């Protein structure tokens, strides 16, 4: 899925076959279907945490804008790229809200 096809009205969901654990400087995601590990830096870990808590991408972008005091448009663009990467690796799915 390209980032332009992604709607911020969509909900991001972490599938059951993906588990994640937070460490001090990294969040590790494990895809149990592939047995592969993936690492997120603290910013990525925070995005994943907000995705898990809020789901809907527009809400997540709002929260990120608040947390990092950055323009909403920039956070929306960053979130699109981030989610596109996770979708391509099978680590999240996007659903209609």
């Amino acid at each position, binding site marked *: 899925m390209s980032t332009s096809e992604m709607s911020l009205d969509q909900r991001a969901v972490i599938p059951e*076959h993906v*588990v994640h*654990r937070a*460490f*001090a*400087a990294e969040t590790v995601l*494990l895809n*149990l279907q592939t047995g592969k*590990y993936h*690492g997120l830096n603290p910013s990525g870990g925070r995005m994943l945490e907000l995705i898990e808590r809020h789901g809907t991408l527009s809400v997540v972008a709002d929260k990120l804008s608040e947390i990092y005091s950055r323009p909403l448009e920039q956070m929306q663009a960053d979130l699109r790229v981030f989610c596109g990467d996770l979708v391509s690796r099978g680590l999240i799915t996007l659903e209609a809200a």
Partner: protein
Amino acid sequence: MAAHGTRGGDAFGLHISSAVPVPGLEPLPRHPERMVCLRVAHDHGALGRRSSHEILYRAGDGEPPQMLIDRRPGGYGIWSPRAGRYLISADGTEIVAALPQRSSWPWELLFAQALPIAAAIRGLEVLHASAVAIDGAAIAITAASGHGKSTLAAALIRGGAEFVADDVVALEATPDGVVAHPGAPIVNASEEGLARGVAHERVVGRTAKHHVVVRRVQGSLPLRALVFLERLPAGSRARVVRVLDVDPAWLLGSTFVFVVRAPQRLVRQLDIHQAIAASVRVLHARLPWTEDPQWLAETLTPHLL
């Protein structure tokens, strides 16, 4: 299901029940709930054919294979032309051993592979580490093979620590924290190691190394510290630092059992690594190669107390 034997003992958080005596394997006071039945097959054919699903193959360049581990419907098979064959059931409750006929230490693969694999199946995390106990808590030392885990552990023991495990240590996340279970009370010591005074009760076999029985701690202990040992060129300055943001890849890479890839094991492994990172003192010890392991122990000890 095979009948349980009346002999055996405890190692790696497992209670091994065996119909035949296994040198050095003795019960510990606390009876663990994880029972494994060990059976010796006199017919090597009883273990079935090697599976084509090989998951670990160890051999030198141009040399015949030394060991092969395969996954099969009934569990995991270990095959070594020198050290025998083993079959570990898929649920980790039974080990069938076809021992080598010409070996002065026929149980090598039981301690080096079969029991650690069974422990991983049964819910324990198994690190490639040696461990000692100081003041009632375990200190695990992990490093690449040949980088002196056992030598450093032996030096710590000469300084007053107690033996917990050599080369493989079984860990468990409990409500009270991460605990280390004693390994087998067997050390594979080099000629040099014995000459240096590895304190042992008796020699049970000799291959390329001396296989000796040592006195071990009498039960599981809280894991106080995990030391990542890295060696520097001789003459370098020793550096021991506490790692507050441990890289999960260090922990994942220090596992001893790579072959058990069941989802529940992978999740449990991640859980215990997270518990270690959160609650155990993690040290990065960069120590130079030296002829004096006692100096290494004395350099490290202040960081362990």
